[in-house]
């Protein structure tokens, strides 16, 4: 197995090594190393502190050298609510199910903000942490997961403002507010699954940095956030209407937040159950797919 000395530098490759022709023997076929999900989950659970540390770092870094700091977490969905109030509340007058438009919009915008921020940060999380991915071994799903977790922290801040706003407009807690718990769980399933997917795609195609924001805009307007669910249904062809909450599984979730917080109604459990099941299936698929790819991230990124 000795290469002829003196023959060095053939090809002049900076990376060194030999091309297949240089080898003089046939290389073996690629060996498949099976992905064991059980092992992966055990490693992930051992990396809990790692996840917390990364989420904390994301938050610290996100608001370093900004004047308003963590206030931006609140300001972003809040400003969107103001814009919506003017455009949809005043100009387009889409209606707001008999409640003041600002509360109407904000009650769905805050959970939407969580999903959208998680996916947005998740798009670049592996590329931004490229140095670590390339040089240190760790369960690499901590990067997308910490995008979700740090967005959840921002969400908690926004939710506090939403609470004050609800109380200020005279909407007081009812039993139906408890449905926020299953609604959040369902939303988190989609947030984690989508974040895993987009983060892995970005490793191979940086195009996603341009595509993902556009898709998020599309989903924002395809979901009854700025407008009442009734208007969304009315815009669809007659035959499609019953399918609306199933074609866009975020519909029963985001509308559910509004039903609970503003109208004091429980979610439509059948639709929500379908969404949650779909979210769980998507998450399982996304995680398997992510673990299959992530072994080659360090070589590609």
């Amino acid at each position, binding site marked *: *197995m*000795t*290469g002829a*000395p*003196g023959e*060095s530098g053939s*090809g002049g*490759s*900076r*990376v*060194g*090594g*030999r*091309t*297949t*022709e*240089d*080898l003089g*023997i046939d*290389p*073996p*076929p*690629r*060996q498949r*190393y099976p992905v064991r999900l059980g092992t992966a989950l055990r490693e992930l659970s051992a990396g809990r*502190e*790692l996840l917390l*540390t990364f989420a904390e*770092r994301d938050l*610290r*870094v996100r608001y*370093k*050298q900004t004047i308003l700091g963590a206030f931006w977490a609140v300001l972003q969905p809040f400003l969107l609510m103001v814009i919506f109030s003017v455009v949809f509340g005043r100009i387009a007058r889409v209606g707001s199910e008999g409640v003041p438009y600002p509360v109407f919009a904000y009650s769905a915008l805050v959970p939407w903000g969580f999903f959208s921020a998680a996916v947005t940060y998740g798009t670049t999380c592996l590329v931004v942490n490229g*140095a*670590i991915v*390339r*040089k*240190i*071994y*760790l369960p690499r799903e901590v990067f997308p997961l910490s995008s979700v977790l740090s967005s959840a922290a921002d969400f908690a801040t926004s939710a506090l403002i939403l609470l004050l706003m609800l109380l200020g407009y005279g909407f007081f807690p009812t039993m139906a507010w408890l449905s926020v718990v299953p609604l959040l769980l369902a939303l988190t399933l989609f947030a984690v699954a989508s974040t895993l997917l987009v983060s892995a795609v970005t490793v191979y195609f940086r195009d996603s940095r341009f595509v993902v924001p556009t898709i998020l805009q599309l989903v924002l307007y395809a979901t009854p956030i700025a407008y009442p669910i009734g208007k969304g249904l009315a815009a669809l062809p007659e035959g499609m209407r019953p399918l609306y909450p199933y074609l866009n599984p975020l519909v029963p979730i985001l509308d559910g937040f509004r039903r609970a917080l503003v109208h004091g109604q429980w979610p439509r459990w059948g639709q929500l159950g379908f969404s949650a099941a779909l979210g769980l299936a998507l998450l399982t698929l996304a995680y398997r797919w992510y673990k299959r790819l992530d*072994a*080659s991230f*360090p*070589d590609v990124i």
Partner: protein
Amino acid sequence: MSSDRASSVVTLERVWKRYRIGGARRRRVTRGRRLSSEIARVVEQARRRGSEGSAGRHIWALADASFEIAAGEAVAIIGANGGGKSTTLKLIARITQPWSGTVRTRGRIGSLIEIRSGIHPELTGRENIFLYGTILGLSRRDIRRRFDDIVDFAELGRYVDTPVKRYSSGMEIRLGFSVAVHVEPDILLIDEVLAVGDESFQRRCLQRMDRFRTEGQTLLFVSHVMSDVRRLCPRAIYLERGAVRMDGPTDDVIRRYHRDVEEAGP
């Protein structure tokens, strides 16, 4: 030299590793290319990726490399650039997967492969100690317990609450190195980190590694500084263009390496 399988903590068995070079992953050089040509390029790339035939597009960083390292050994990996040294450490650290073959390790691995990578410039020294310590597998409680030692070893002093971007590069390396050595792994992988930092720091690092050895930890050391290699490692593995060219007592291996370099000419 190498020992029976039972006591070996690092085993490489007929390991191959290949990387893609140039061509297929060429980054854009020109701006404002037309969309049609971009699409054509993407399609072409996907087509090429499908057919594995294009041999010249890959290089074999490791080609059929095998060796074993026993617990408590200190082994240097030497060789010219592109020999496969860093790839070997990355495989042992599980950062990357082999093309084929087996890499087995036993015990906690600490790697000083690129100590700056886990450090975030916007965060302070203190925040980075916790961040990097956790990345390397310490719990927060472990870090708190070792915090003062880490700061002392890195000689951070009053800069501990200053953002790392204001540090000198030497200080940054010291911070990373200090955290990494306090992980107290069973197997420590070191890749040319001693090249940076001033002499007094280098001396302390070497002392620290001596201590590793006396405590029975296993050391894998990649360096081009042969005096450091001689001092730390009784055994050396000489990698040349992805293959183990020689494995044995350090002085013999270095002699062989030097002879090869001379024969290759300037």
